[in-house]
């Protein structure tokens, strides 16, 4: 328990001083995205890595949070701080109601159902032009501000987003280590066995689905208020798949893994920009190599790699 707290404190400190080290205008913007994506990856990981339930529609919840916040603050001139919890409540309730029938499905069927859900939400964003602005998007969303500070620069946004992300991380770490986290892993492994021990497997699955949607919605609201412009393209099927990739590459069932996956998948395209037209090929190849050689994800694969390298050195370079 103490070790966990130490690790989290160290991680938080690293996040807090990171801007001083990498202080670059554009990079700060990318790091803000790393924060948002970390939140989303954690949300999906709670569902997929812990409870073992897949969702290919999480970009939809992310988008709903963003659009609800956006519409409430522009069309209805609501205070952003009020719009955010309203959006989270609406998205959470919606996920709960949808989860009740949908989470009875398993495996491929659940993947299909959530995929459909994501696509429906995406279509609604595109077609309800009066409400959402349709494909051309919604602009003029106000920045958040508190006590005279307006979060309108990348550095300020960095601290805002990462503050919330760290809170989400701490909450998720606690949840994962608790009685509920244990029950989630039990449901993941064998639903029948969990049930006969008194775990209300179905109720728990729906609750974690709703919680996951709420965190995604929160990330969406923050996204809307930091970018001030949103369009449906950011919330499509592709992004759901990208989230799934972050969770798997980072490490299923690991909160820090979600950060690693989100960081890698957000930074990689920026790093590969120098490779011009070949970036997509290198990107794809890297992902394939990682899945092949680190099936447990970065969070387990990288330490194993280090151990391997160091033990080889200790043996005097023997292969």
């Amino acid at each position, binding site marked *: 328990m103490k070790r966990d707290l130490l690790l989290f404190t160290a991680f938080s400190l690293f996040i807090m001083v990171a801007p001083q080290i990498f202080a670059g205008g554009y990079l700060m913007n990318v790091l803000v995205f790393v924060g948002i994506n970390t939140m989303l990856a954690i949300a999906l990981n709670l569902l997929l890595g812990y409870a073992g339930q897949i969702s290919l529609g999480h970009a939809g919840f992310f988008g709903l949070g963003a659009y609800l916040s956006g519409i409430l603050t522009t069309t209805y001139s609501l205070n952003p701080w009020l719009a955010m919890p309203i959006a989270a409540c609406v998205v959470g309730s919606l996920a709960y109601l949808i989860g009740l029938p949908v989470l009875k499905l398993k495996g491929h069927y659940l993947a299909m159902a959530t995929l459909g859900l994501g696509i429906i939400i995406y279509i609604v964003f595109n077609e309800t032009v009066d409400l959402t602005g349709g494909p051309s998007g919604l602009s003029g969303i106000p920045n958040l501000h508190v006590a005279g500070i307006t979060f309108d620069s990348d550095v300020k946004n960095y601290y805002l987003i990462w503050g919330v992300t760290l809170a989400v991380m701490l909450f998720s770490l606690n949840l994962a280590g608790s*009685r509920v986290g*244990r*029950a989630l*892993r*039990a449901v993941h*492994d*064998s639903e*029948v*066995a*969990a*049930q*006969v*021990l*008194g*775990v*209300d497997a179905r109720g728990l699955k729906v609750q974690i689905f709703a919680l996951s949607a709420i965190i995604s919605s929160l990330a969406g609201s923050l996204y809307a208020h930091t970018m001030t412009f949103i369009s449906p393209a950011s919330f499509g099927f592709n992004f759901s798949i990208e989230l799934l990739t972050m969770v798997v590459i980072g490490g299923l069932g690991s909160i820090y893994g979600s950060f690693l996956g989100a960081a890698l998948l957000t930074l990689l395209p920026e790093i590969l920009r120098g490779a011009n037209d070949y970036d997509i090929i290198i990107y794809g190849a890297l992902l394939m190599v990682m899945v092949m050689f680190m099936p447990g994800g970065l969070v387990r694969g990288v330490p194993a790699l280090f151990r391997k390298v160091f033990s080889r050195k200790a043996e005097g370079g023997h292969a």
Partner: protein
Amino acid sequence: MLRLKNINTYYGKVHALKNVSLHLDEGEIVTLIGANGAGKTTILNTISGVTPASAGEVLFCKDAVTTLPPDKIVQRGISQVPEGRQVFKPLSVEDNLELGAYLRYRNREGKAAIHKDMDQVFSLFPRLEERRKQLAGTMSGGEQQMLAIGRALMANPKMLLLDEPSMGLAPLVVQEIFRVLERLRQENGTTILLVEQNAKAALKLADRGYVLETGKVILEGPADELLENAEVKRAYLGKDKKEMWER
């Protein structure tokens, strides 16, 4: 203590249990025997609420529990050790046991009482204590079966439903597990409903037995009478039972 009245259970269109009635008194060990597909597991799953009955009544301590969901059944004091052990393989022995006390933790029951029960599980199965930090999936079949029973005991049940605890285990391990069941009845007064393929061993342990065939109870009675019953001998103990026995 437990009474099933004219239970009918379906899997989709398959009529798995046909008017099954049976009862268990407090402190009894009762066994269900029968061939594959006779409905033994279905009876346990019907009691525990995993596959609820579509007609009939399940009474536990005089209350109807027929349509209660599994978690409410556990709450009432019935724990199931599912078929094929179903321990949580990626979790440690300790975590598996703590999961058995899931509802007690939820009901804010004190840690002291729960840990006392964990100590009892360790005294029944010392092997589990040696391996408390080990991942359940890395243990042998016998140890996993012990863990599955220990996990069910962590709910502090009045009644234990066991589904083929001897499946795929060495005879010595089976003996050890059956001895523990006997001890449980003596020390905790636990009522036990035991489903077994190993009819001979089960009937030797049990007070009474029910013989099932294609979803119906075809025979019931005291265990020692069933052991000697010509029909049971022929169908479930093998023709040359005597020879096997005296070997």
